[in-house]
């Protein structure tokens, strides 16, 4: 586990986790500041977009009387060098941590409560009664870092680039906007999205930081946006310098639309691939904050009351992908069920997350769509009596014609070598022999793309905790998209209803139904394993107005973060 290679992989694959946009953690109240923060100035939206937030985690609240201290540079770790500095193409948290603060989006998630959507470049929005038209009213007087003014044309050109990327540009989130048929700009400060079908997920998708807005003229010039000189947005920070392997530096944008923000003078990300080095640098006071996917060296922090270590379940879920095209027995539902029954999820949560994760469905346990734990436990294989589950698994295998068990290859990549061996061990207890094959990420992805695997361990990694993002990629009967060759037409219909349902409460009920049934039935060949955690280490006495989130992608603008010393 502590080998060099693994660390390297953690660093590159932190991106994987990065792309998971999670919901819901409410911390201390943001302190009153002499001037308003980004959001409160804006009028309320005419249509409230999401359900009520669920408070989940108490983080030392900041005393409300405290005045904001301005200035200072925030230092944190990057799990490696950024790979793609074009926000629309980028996929890793490292990329976002570097350039996210340079950009604004139409809407944004509340940095203290990710179930809330707040205004950003759009100060208000409304949705037509049929859910087919979304109109955004834009903030006026906003300037890009290059001095050009922000208008509706910028929004139009950016979303067109995201939806229909030009040759040579890879837009992984273009599919989010597959319901948008047209974008109109009735005037300089109004943008209208016309949809081909109702899509309540749209408001989430224009709020994710990956849909940040560049100046239209820059996109139209065909410039390579991966180039550091083209990191031009309207965000609270501007690009300052980047030395590969050394530091990625941002400085305060003095022309930010909220004249009072940001509080910090700058942000520096330090690419560090060795987690020990990160922990030491934090202890030595060189970093204000560090985040990792591996458990931090808790012993080093013991007895240090000023340090807070928080492990938060992520939006990512480890899952087993049973490929019925390459392994005939998976066509039998009893075999798939036996595999799910054999897994001891609670044991894995204990072993892999120091007990900090929780048993949940596919939707995030602290989010607005969470399947209640008592319901999760009703799903087959999620109950408390593991011995009974194992007996049942053996019986199902016998009924399916495999009384002596069966054997298959389990493909995994070297981000985490313990989870696959734990799985193999648990499967062995019901007579299933899983031959674990750990590959380098490149090879693994190649095999997945070619569908050359019997069983693969991978993430379900939604960009945001929202049903379309969580289920869209695998609740499908498209042969080219399906990773397993298995589906249920009934559940696909249910999913399609969820996609269009405008009533929040109904949508939630249907999401619960889909979540439960995909845990319970394995009809898509996807077996839920467990949800890993993201670790946040920081000194609450120094880092102020910052809330650790289950998904660190959404909190990275740091417009209102400040340092006490």
């Amino acid at each position, binding site marked *: 586990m502590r080998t060099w290679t693994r660390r390297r992989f953690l660093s590159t694959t932190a991106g994987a986790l990065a792309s998971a946009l999670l919901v819901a953690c409410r911390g201390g109240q943001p302190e009153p500041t002499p001037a308003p923060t980004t959001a409160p100035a804006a009028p309320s939206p005419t249509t409230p977009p999401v359900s009520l937030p669920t408070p989940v985690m108490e983080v030392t609240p900041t005393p409300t009387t405290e005045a904001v201290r301005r200035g200072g540079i925030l230092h944190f770790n990057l799990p490696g060098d950024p790979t793609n500095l074009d926000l629309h193409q980028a996929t890793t948290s490292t990329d976002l941590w570097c350039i996210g603060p340079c950009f604004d989006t139409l809407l944004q998630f509340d940095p203290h409560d990710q179930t809330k959507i707040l205004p950003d470049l759009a100060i208000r929005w409304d949705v037509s009664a049929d859910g087919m038209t979304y109109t955004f009213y834009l903030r006026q007087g906003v300037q890009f870092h290059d001095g050009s003014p922000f208008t509706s044309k910028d929004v139009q050109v950016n979303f067109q680039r995201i939806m229909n990327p030009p040759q040579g540009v890879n837009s992984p989130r273009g599919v989010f906007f597959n319901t948008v048929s047209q974008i109109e700009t009735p005037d300089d400060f109004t943008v209208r999205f016309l949809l081909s079908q109702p899509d309540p997920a749209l408001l989430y998708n224009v709020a994710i930081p990956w849909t940040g807005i560049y100046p239209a003229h820059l996109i139209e010039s065909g410039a390579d946006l991966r180039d550091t000189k083209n990191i031009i947005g309207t965000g609270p920070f501007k690009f300052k310098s980047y030395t590969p392997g050394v*530091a990625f530096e941002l400085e305060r944008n003095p022309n930010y639309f909220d004249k009072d923000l940001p509080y910090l003078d700058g942000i520096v990300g330090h690419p560090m691939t060795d987690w020990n080095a990160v922990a030491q640098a934090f202890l030595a006071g060189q970093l204000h904050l560090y985040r990792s996917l591996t458990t931090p060296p808790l012993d080093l922090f013991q007895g240090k009351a000023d340090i807070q270590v928080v492990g938060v379940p992520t939006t990512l879920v480890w899952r087993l992908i049973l490929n019925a095209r390459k392994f005939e027995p998976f066509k039998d539902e009893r075999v798939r069920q036996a595999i799910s029954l054999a897994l001891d999820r609670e044991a894995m949560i204990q072993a892999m997350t120091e007990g900090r994760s929780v048993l949940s469905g596919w939707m995030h346990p602290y989010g607005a769509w969470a399947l209640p734990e008592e319901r999760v436990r009703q799903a087959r294989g999620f109950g408390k009596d593991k011995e009974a589950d194992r007996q049942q698994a053996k019986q199902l295998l016998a009924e399916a014609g495999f009384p002596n068990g069966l054997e298959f290859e389990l493909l995994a990549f070297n981000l985490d070598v313990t989870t696959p061996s734990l799985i193999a061990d648990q499967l062995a207890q019901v007579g299933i022999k899983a031959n674990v094959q750990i590959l380098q990420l490149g090879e693994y992805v190649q095999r997945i793309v070619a569908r050359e695997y019997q069983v693969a361990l991978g993430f379900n990694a939604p960009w945001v905790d929202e049903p379309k993002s969580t289920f869209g990629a695998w609740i499908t009967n498209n042969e080219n998209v399906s990773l397993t060759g298995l589906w249920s037409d009934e559940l696909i219909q249910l999913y399609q209803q969820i996609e269009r349902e405008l009533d929040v409460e109904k949508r939630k009920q249907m999401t619960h139904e889909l979540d439960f049934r995909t845990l319970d039935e394995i009809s898509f060949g996807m077996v839920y394993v467990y949800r890993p955690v993201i670790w946040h280490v920081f000194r609450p006495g120094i880092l102020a107005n910052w809330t650790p989130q289950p998904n660190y992608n959404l909190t990275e603008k740091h417009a209102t973060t400040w340092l006490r010393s």
Partner: protein
Amino acid sequence: MFLQYLARRAIGGFLVVLLATFVVFVFIRVAGDPAALIVGGTGENITINPERVAQVRQQLGLDKPLILQFVDFLAGLITGGLGNSFVTGRPIADELRVRLPLTIEIALLSEFTAWIFALPLGLFSALRRGRFTEALTRIFFFVASAVPAYWLGLLVLIFVLLTFGWRPPLGLVPPTQNLWVHLQQIALPILVLGFVLAAGLVRFIRNAVLEVLQEPFVQVARAKGLAESTVVMRHVLRNAFAPTLAFSGLRVGYLLGGVVIVETTFNLPGLGLFFVEAVARRDFPVIQIAVLILGTAFVIINLLTDIACSLIDPRLRERG
């Protein structure tokens, strides 16, 4: 004669590098597809659109026949420099600007430090063979050769941190900008790697000196009544030096491996990490440049070592 020898070695070296580059060129293309990684991000988003992958392959020129790709790569080297990374799109030359000098600096200074540790210890332990003090030096090199660099580095870092609350400043400040900070950043990795490298060297020097001590010319020197220090410095050491230097030259690979490890442990932005990340990301152009640079370094250092040896020992030159 000597020039001819040099020319032969240079041509041989060139062919070795070319061959190594070609072999790696072919093999990395067998093991993993960068296009899939680029489209799929970093593994989480595995529902990859095969059409997009094909498109990216075409953009990167990966759909051409292998041999054409290799010719393109060589032509690029001759005409347009080192090319761009597949993954980041950044020019490889930009990355090397910071990383290459640092790796060379760490490698040279660590090797130098190793010699400073090893030369007196090796000599001492040979001359004091069988005595108690020799046992002490043997303990040193047993320990040093058993300790991996990353572990020692970690230990040193934690010790310094917990004892003095100090850690080398993050990142890398160029020596021209602030020499003092630069030295703080590289001192510990150099000491650690130098110490680990010294282990093998001490043992080699000791054996080389012992061997020379048996030679008749040493007895002759002593019989002539030369002072023991003169015998050791002028006759023994000089003769033991050539094989040790050759040994050192052959260990370039080991040295570079050590550099990669301390770069990671001490978080220094050298070549090592850059190249290893490139392998994981299937960033072909970077891997090819890596092989080219490391291969060339290997060949040049071996050549220089041979030249140095033949300068020290004229017999080697004659044998050519």
